[in-house]
């Protein structure tokens, strides 16, 4: 039962997110709105999600990589798009991605270390 309840809650908030998207006509995908709504729901109610929901969320997220595989296979069909300008595309993709990664991680590391300290120690 608890697993069905968890799936119900996640899909319900996804549906709510899709509705917000439809009403506001933004580029933000419905599931991202759903994520914000679900987080806001628990924050405003000052309650922890039930252990069953936490467990379902953690197991679903533990396999997140798998869920990207079908879309990833789609790029194989579209790789020809890269052929036109593979050098600037390849260099820019690698350099810009690694630069973004380093910038974000370094700022958080340099100024936000407190965020990673366990609650009891803070």
């Amino acid at each position, binding site marked *: 039962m608890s697993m069905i309840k968890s799936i119900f809650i*996640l899909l319900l908030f996804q549906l709510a*997110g899709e509705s917000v998207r439809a009403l506001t006509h*933004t*580029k*933000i*995908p*419905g*599931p*991202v709105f*759903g*994520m914000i709504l*679900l*987080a806001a729901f*628990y*924050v405003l109610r000052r309650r922890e*999600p039930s252990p069953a929901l936490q467990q*379902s*969320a*953690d197991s679903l*997220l533990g396999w*997140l*990589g*798998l*869920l*990207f*595989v*079908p*879309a*990833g*296979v*789609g*790029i*194989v*069909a*579209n790789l020809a*798009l*890269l052929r*036109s*300008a593979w050098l*600037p*595309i390849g260099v820019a*993709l690698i350099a*810009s*991605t*690694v630069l*973004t*990664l*380093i*910038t*974000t991680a*370094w*700022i*958080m*590391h340099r*100024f*936000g270390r407190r*965020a*990673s300290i366990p*609650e009891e120690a*803070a």
Partner: protein
Amino acid sequence: MIQVPIPHVLSPGIVPLFAIVLTLGAYLLGVEIEKRLRNPLANPVLIAIVIIGVSLRLLHLSYQDYFTGAQFIHFLLGPATVALAIPMVRALEHMRRGFWPMMSALLAGSLIGLISGYAIVRLLGGSQQVALSMAPKSLTTPIAIAVSASIGGIPSLSAVLAILGGILVAVSIDPVLHWLKIAEPSAKGLAAGTAGSGIGASRVIPQHTLSAAFAGVAIGANGILTAVLAPILVPFLKHW
């Protein structure tokens, strides 16, 4: 006309089931290879994509055939994205403590990703349209497609770059951050989500619940920030 023997084995009725079994099997094999090799390049998502790509070619199955079954796995991306709220709620106190650094890191990462992606393509002689397709590459695929369309890029190219960029982050984040001696789960999660959205985050989420929380925030925030910033910045970028 050469008769392809495959349709006799894979009657159309079982193609969807075959696609699901193939996807799960390829991913499990990828996880197993990752465990054995312990090399960041042995990424399960990348391995699964290659195995499935080769299998489809050998079996003369189109991507549309494959997706009749794979769509059921793809569908779970929606609830999984919503589920990112759960680690976020758990990490609320951590986020409150690191709020301003987190916001600064997000804004800086978002701007650097957008501007450097565009600028490097242009510096290396790529066309403006290709550069504009590169600009939203760090975003989660649906937002990358939408932003690309709105600024004059090629949406399908941006989708490919978003997925390749995500794989690149999944493969490189551990060695790069190890080299920089950055080990906190908050910095790791935030960087994975900002630079590589969901696929990048899938690498660090199982490592720590705080990584999952900060990755979730980063995926949403970078998507929203870039969707707002890109249309404002692009006219300046084009000039320069």
